[in-house]
Each structure stands twice: as structure tokens, then as C-alpha cells.
């Protein structure tokens, strides 16, 4: 496993870009995710209408992997239904835990596949899944709303 594979172009583009990193004026749901062991923080904001994520963004601070992963996720979930987004979260978590390796299945993750090699870096798994776990929490809260 080469570290270069993880700090790839896609990942660095997202880590250094702020196109998804802002507040959402019309957010219907926000949720904060914290990684207590390293202090990474993400606040995910989504605008859900009729069960569909019409818009999403995040704010927070953390390492390149946590920030890029959240940004890629935001790109991916915009326009998807909450159910579809939850399924993507399952696939992503499965990929990071090395439970899902089927390439066709992973294709649904689009750019997020760039984080596949994190499965070989146990120390960084929590960084990669922070945004996705936060999304799962949003989906859970959605049900109780």
C-alpha cells in the first residue's frame, strides 16, 4: 500500500476546495459528528424535501482525509433520496472495513472510491467515515421528525 494512493489528486482537490464547505441557509437537518480521539469535527447540513436531499453542505475542521471524504460525500448525496444516501453510506462503510470489494458495487460511490485504500490504514478509518456516520445520524433523526 502506497501512501501516495491515498493522498491522490481527487482527495487533495476536495481537501483543498471549499465548494461544499459552507452553511446552508435553508437546512432542514443539521448534525455534528466528532471524532473524540483526534478532535476532527464535522457539521453536516442538509435540505430534505419529500424524502429527497435537495441540497447539502458541511463545515468543520480536521485532517485532509476527513474533510475530503465529507466533501466527496456531499457531492454524492445531493439529489439522492434519504434511502439511497443511506445505502451509499452502507457501501462506503463496507468498503472501508474491507467487507465490500465487488467493483461494480463500489462504482456507485464514484469519487469516494479514492478512499478505498484507507481500509489498510486502521489509524485513519475513523477520519474517512466521520462524514458518513454523521449522515447516518441525520437519516436516523429524519425518521423521528
Amino acid at each position, binding site marked *: 500500500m502506497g*501512501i*501516495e494512493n491515498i*493522498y491522490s489528486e481527487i482527495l487533495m*482537490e476536495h481537501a483543498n476546495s471549499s465548494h461544499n464547505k459552507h452553511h446552508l441557509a435553508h437546512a432542514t437537518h443539521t448534525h455534528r459528528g466528532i471524532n473524540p480521539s*483526534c478532535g476532527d469535527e464535522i457539521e453536516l447540513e442538509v435540505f430534505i424535501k419529500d424524502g429527497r436531499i435537495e441540497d447539502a453542505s458541511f463545515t468543520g475542521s*480536521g485532517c*485532509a482525509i476527513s*474533510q475530503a471524504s465529507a466533501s466527496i460525500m456531499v457531492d454524492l448525496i445531493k439529489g439522492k433520496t434519504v434511502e439511497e444516501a443511506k445505502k451509499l453510506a452502507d457501501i462506503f462503510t463496507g468498503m472501508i472495513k474491507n467487507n465490500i470489494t465487488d467493483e461494480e458495487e463500489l462504482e456507485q460511490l464514484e469519487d469516494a472510491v479514492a478512499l478505498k485504500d484507507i481500509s489498510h490504514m486502521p489509524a*485513519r478509518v475513523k477520519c474517512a467515515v466521520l462524514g458518513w456516520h454523521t449522515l447516518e445520524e441525520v437519516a436516523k433523526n429524519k425518521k423521528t421528525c
Partner: protein
Amino acid sequence: MSNRYKEDFPILRQEPGRKPLIYLDNAATTQKPETVIRAMEDYYREYNANPYRGLYEISVKATDRYEEARSVTAGFINAKEPAEIIFTRNTTESLNLIAYSYGRSGLEEGDEILIPISEHHSNLLPWQQLAREKKAVLKYIYLDEKGSLREEELEEKITNKTRIVALAYVSNVLGTIYPVKNIIDKAHSAGAVVVLDCAQSIPHFPLDVQELDTDFAVFSGHKMLGPMGIGVLYGKKELLLRMPPFLTGGEMIDYVAEQEATFAPLPQKFEAGTPNVEGAVGLLEAINYIRQVGYAQIGAVEDALTAYALDRLKQVPYLTVYGEDSRTKNRCGVISFNLEGVHPHDTASLLDADGICIRAGHHCAQPLMKYLGLAATCRVSLYFYNTKEDIDALIASLMKVRRWLGLGN
């Protein structure tokens, strides 16, 4: 500058077919010399037995070695007698023991506990919980921007209500060596006891508990070449005698009846359960190794390395060192820094690819990080087996980090 000590440490030896290990995380734990590893192996191969109550030769030997470790530890820190040395799991357990036993029996509502803002969570949470439980007040000594204690701040915060002053001899984040003798004297004038966390000092310079007149001193074996799972609590005998037991159970009793019990004398009163003989034997050998190298030599090597590391780090573009950035008397080889625009975890992961081990994060000192306005830092911590070559490798790797992350140089 090669270093003859590396040869004594199996994990650091250069061996064909093995990637060299550049270990710069000594504040987290140190590597172990061959003698320590051997002593522990010998214990299991030759005289493993439950100490104290065995009526046979190897149990007697296990008891003797365990007690020898206590005597040697007492001599090492100049305690008056071995009974003042309690073996624990680590610094954290030693501090919890003091907070539970001394703190819960001796503190009243409104009493004050004073600690510097720079304390490791292990020397913060036991006091925070104690204060909440006893409705006591936990007060903080704030530092200047270089991490040094301000005299006026100390004068102001120590009051006639102060009962406990707890502090680290050396900061595990900034490497600052605190003027503990002065603090101990001031605390005593106010009628407070002092708990001194020596986890980051005893690997690097001597501890003389009588000269400092500290009431308690604590440290871990694994940060001073010994194994994990063995820690030390030193307490003045008159205090330990007054304190109730912390854990109860086997080994720590005198006589047990259905509804009451009397407890063993010191030090067994505080050592419930089968002790860590293997750990004590390892600690004993670690002390022997440190004595053989000598604190004077350890200090000389580390001073030179720290000065070199600080100079070289200053040459890295976009790098900021926190705390004292020059080698002075008040600083150990624990260096926190950040590269502009790079999260410390990314830096650590990229250095790992070059076989360089550093720590990144909040270093179990979240209140300090918040006070300094930092989310996290990278931390390099040196020991006498490190070399200039180790530092050179670190610098070469750091020079690449920002480029790797697409941030130019």
C-alpha cells in the same frame, strides 16, 4: 553522529531486510533494551510464581525480586524507605489512587485543588471528578504564550484554601520543565500537599523526592525503558499511613472476618491482588540500564539533539514550533509543531511512509490545546538513543509533506 546505544535496543538495530525504524515518539513510550526484555523472559522461564505466600523456592525468589525492585526504585528517587514505594499499573493509576484515597478522605466543600492548564488528562480528570464529588474548587494556573508558568499567577492562585497542588515536572506537549521546587515550597507555606507527575521527567533527569520535599511523586515504567503495566507511586510515609486503602482484595489484608477486616501495613495496603512481578523485574532492569548510561550522559546527548532538532525545524518552510523554541534550561526534547495548512494527522501518516514515528493529536491535553487555540499538533519526542541522522530523516520527510498534499512547498 551515530549512537552506540541503538545497538542495545533490538527494535532499533539495523538489520538486513528490515526497514529502519526512526522512533521519535518517546514521550508516548520508550523502546526497551535487550537487558529489560531478557530479565522479563528469565522471570517466566525460571521463577514464575505468585509472590508472598508460596512456600517453595521459586515463589520466594519471585518475592525477593519484586521487593528488590521496590528497594532499587526507592534508592533511585531517594525515598527514605522502600515502604514509601507503591507499585501500580501506571502514572494514571497512581494519580487516581491519590485522588481517591487522599482526596476523598481529606477534602471538604470549598477546598481548592490547583493544577496548571497544561496537565495531561491523567492529572486533570481525577481532580475534576474529585472536585465535583466533594464540591471542592478546581483552579487552573494559566501559562504565558511560551508555555512557562508565571510567578504572579502562581502567587495569586495559591491561597489558604488550597489543599492539593498537582502538576507535571515536564509538560508532555511543550516539553517545558516547570520550577517545581519553588511551587512545592509555596504550596507547603499555604498548607497544601503536592502531587508531582514525573512521567515525562524521570526518563531524562534525576528525581530526588527528599530534596524537592514533594509529598507524592508518580511515574510509569514504560516511559523509562521498562515494560507497560508497571507504575510507581511515591508517598511520604506519614501521609500513606493516614490514607485508607484504594483497592481491596487479596495481598492487602491482615485479617478478614465476616463483617470487618484489618489491612496490611505499607506498602501492601495499597497493592491489592497478585502484583505485576514481571513488570517490576523489567522496571528494575530499566533503572539499572539508566544508571549504567548515567543521567549526565543522557542529559548531554538529549540537550545536543534537542538544540539540533529545534535549529533544523526552523529551516522547514511553513513550520511553527510551539513553546520555547530554543534549547534552554527549561526545556526537554518534547517538541510540538505544525505545518501551515496541514492537519497533524496527515503529517504523521506521510512521515510513517518513511518509517518515522511521531505523535499527532491533542496529546491528552485538550484544555491546553483550547487555551493555546490549537486543534492538534505534531509532536516529536527524543530520547538518548536518537541520533542526528534520525532528525535529518525527519526534516527531509517534513520538507516533502506540503508538496505531497498539493500545497506547493
